[in-house]
């Protein structure tokens, strides 16, 4: 620890019961980005689920919009220590998208326009835990927050909720993604504070 700076508190870091360990509450919505914001025209946008055997399931924007829509209100936790409570989204459950997808895969790797990737167990995309969302707080999801559409997996650290999501590859082996190959935890449960490898 460094020399204490007299009078310095930093951002308020009150421990609230609703917050995982090491998190502080924020009211605004910080923009984190590992690269330039891709611009994806809706008429060429697509979402693809590819199974371990190479079978692909594709949706255009209009087809995604025609699916049953859900409106989750969830807390989100970023590994850079901020949490935001009660965020409201609109989108399609991964349960809906995975319906009819025949797979023996245990893992999933989400990939994005712009090249970002992140991995998680396939089970964490099921049972009402994950969505492809296109609306935030009643408005179309802004590009800086991952629009036209992003993954939303709020029970894991927010880097798992891939912005600008383009598809999910289902895999037999776990394939670490962009941050998972650079020191971040493979699973990323905020309540167990799984930030870095070995945590």
């Amino acid at each position, binding site marked *: 620890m460094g020399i204490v700076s007299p*009078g310095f508190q930093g*951002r308020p*870091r009150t421990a609230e019961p609703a917050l995982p360990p090491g998190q502080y509450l924020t009211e605004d919505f910080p923009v984190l980005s590992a690269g330039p914001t891709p611009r994806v025209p809706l008429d060429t946008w697509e979402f693809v689920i590819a199974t371990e055997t190479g079978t692909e399931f594709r949706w255009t924007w209009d087809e995604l919009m025609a699916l049953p829509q859900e409106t989750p209100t969830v807390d989100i936790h970023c590994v850079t220590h901020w949490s935001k409570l009660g965020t409201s989204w609109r989108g399609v459950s991964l349960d809906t998208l995975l319906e009819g997808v025949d797979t023996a895969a245990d893992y999933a790797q989400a990939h994005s326009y712009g090249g970002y990737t992140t991995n998680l167990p396939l089970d964490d995309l099921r049972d009402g835990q994950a969505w492809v969302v296109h609306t935030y707080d009643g408005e179309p999801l802004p590009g800086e927050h991952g629009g036209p559409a992003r993954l939303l997996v709020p029970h894991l650290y927010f880097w798992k909720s891939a912005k600008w999501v383009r598809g999910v590859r289902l895999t037999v082996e776990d394939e670490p993604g962009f941050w998972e190959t650079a020191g971040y935890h493979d699973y990323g449960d905020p309540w167990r504070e799984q930030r870095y490898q070995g945590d």
Partner: protein
Amino acid sequence: MVAQTPARAPARWRVGRLVERRVETPNAQTLVLELPDWPGHLPGQHVDVRLTAPDGYQAARSYSVAGPAVDGPGGPRIELTVQRVPDGEVSPYLIDVYREGDPVEVRGPLGGWFVWRPQETAPVLLVAGGSGVVPLMAMIRARRAAGSRVPFRLLYSVRTPADVIYADELRRRARDDLGLDVAYVYTREAPDGWRGEPHRIGLADVNNHGWPPDLEPLCYVCGPTGFVETAADLLVGLGHQTRRVKTERFGPTG
């Protein structure tokens, strides 16, 4: 000025103390820090400043050094000019809370690329956006301190006349430092008697107040990312070699 030898050791955190504070604009202040074992630096280099809360929480930000180190009774002193970032974490502390005599941790000098060496002979164009003037002012001050006669031009974009950092010193140096020209671009509000309307920096500004590419000047551009992007593109579009246009962007973290 303290001599600079290339740093060849892992940078460590040094403890400095505030010995003086100067108000530059309503939102910018210069902090004079005493750093007893400061090794010296080149004009354009920056330092990282780290704050630590009683519970161990830390926040660090980069700040450009504003001029050559000077010797004080307690050792070398360096100046940092800090612009307040609304909702920032470090700059409001340094401006509102940090007091004379208080310790602060400093790592540096850092960044050997965005530097001007007084032995350079090429003409220099400095393009500043807002508080991006700080490392460029370090070059202007070092030029005078070294007795360099290299022609310098500063093109400084600010919102309003009240936002000009180092306003008096720039007025004085433009008069007294032979071979230094200073020109302004006002983006929101121009002073009385100013010819033209407030505008964002454009081709005419860079063309009128810069150097022709034939002279192969060294160009230094510092400011917010969008400003630097615009100014660097204008310079390259005018025919300046990319390698001779050095940039330093700063983001909205505070």
